């Protein structure tokens, strides 16, 4: 694996559409659940261990070469909110475009052909990692980190939160993010032998409900 390729893929400036999404932070701010660095940390920790773990496992399994169609169905089954499914597929489509331009590969072309309107973002992330010469561990780390870095940078804009404080939140969560990535890779390896049901199914009902509420707003800064 190339460590530099991992940095390219994990860079918040990688042009894959993430900047327009808050990972539920916009709704949580409005609802008063995120008011500063401490509550941002709680919010991110909850996300990391629920949807973060699921996303990391999907990404790791895709990076191991597990069938993308089966993984995409598994992602649907683990995403009750229609608004979140739409957001995940939009982001998956955008990542697919960026990854195909960055690391041209037959597998990514094939994925784009099978999912012209986008597969769930973590599934695309795993295939993109393969195309970049990266492994399941890398894909899992990317997905776990993204599950918290998106809300953190959105909160900087939403609350005018001190950017140093937001970054410190991410640093404090790093050890947990590493453990989540490890668990995700173990789960993905079990999928290879034991089938798709070995994927974790941690869920965060408030994120699902919040996403539906947010999607109905007439005025919002972020797409999700």
């Amino acid at each position, binding site marked *: 694996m190339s460590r530099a390729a991992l940095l390219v893929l994990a860079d918040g400036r990688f*042009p894959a559409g*993430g900047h327009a999404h808050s990972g539920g932070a916009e709704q949580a701010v409005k609802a008063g659940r995120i008011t500063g660095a401490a509550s941002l940390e709680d919010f991110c920790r909850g996300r990391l261990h629920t949807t973060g773990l699921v996303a990391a496992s999907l990404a790791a399994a895709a990076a191991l070469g597990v069938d993308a169609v089966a993984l995409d169905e598994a992602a649907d089954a683990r995403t009750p909110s229609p608004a979140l499914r739409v957001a995940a597929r939009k982001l998956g489509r*955008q990542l697919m*475009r960026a990854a195909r331009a960055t690391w041209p590969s037959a597998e990514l072309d094939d994925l784009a*052909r099978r999912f012209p309107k986008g597969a769930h973002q973590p599934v695309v992330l795993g295939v993109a990692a393969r195309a970049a010469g990266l492994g399941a561990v890398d894909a899992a780390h990317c997905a776990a980190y993204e599950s918290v870095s998106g809300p953190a940078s959105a909160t900087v804009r939403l609350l005018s939160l001190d950017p140093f404080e937001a970054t410190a939140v991410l640093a404090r969560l790093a050890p947990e993010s590493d453990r989540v990535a490890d668990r995700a890779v173990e789960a993905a390896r079990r999928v290879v032998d034991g089938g798709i049901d070995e994927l974790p199914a941690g869920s965060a009902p408030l994120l699902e409900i919040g996403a539906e509420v947010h999607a109905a707003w*007439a005025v*919002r800064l972020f*797409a999700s």
Partner: protein
Amino acid sequence: MHLDHSHDGPSAVSADAHRPDGSRRALRIGLGGPVGSGKTATVAALCRALRDELSLAVVTNDIYTREDAEFLLREAVLPPERITAVETGACPHTAIRDDISANLEAVEDLEDEVGPLDLILVESGGDNLTATFSKGLVDAQIFVIDVAGGDDIPRKGGPGVTTADLLVVNKTDLAPYVGSDLARMAADAKAQRAELPVVFQSLRSEPGVRDVADWVRAQLAAWTA
């Protein structure tokens, strides 16, 4: 980029001049500029001027509402299926320059769903003087400023004023009321832009958007040549 890649591939990647089926895609023109300078009004006027001779569609990038798209719908300048709004996440210039994927999807979906199209106008959310469109998203860009935003804007320059393929100085009808010196604006623009064209217009009086529409026709003629 990837011109060789696009014909048999599942979908285009970026600025490819051809669609996956090998046909030439629509010309894409971006309209950027400060908040309230008259981008949407110019888009609406262009649609009225060109819709009988061209197959047109519009993408809007609103910052936190769908107002621009809704204005165009209300004014019925085009059928609703030809107008798409992109959500930009608090950062309009990111969506047109640094991370153009959502806008590329919008233009490609329009071509798939209502095409074939000759021309797609992409309006940026109102932003600052440094906001420009990526060449991966549009083929040419118009920067719209107005006389009421201060007649020193052409002198200040910045990437939009200096490098846009066309600079439009809008709302000339307001110049007497805000004390803007149009001759000075023209001289400053000339100094910043050398040979690049500048149009002064008022959408409140004749001939309205005529010069900009003529410029768009010329761009299209060059694109299809």
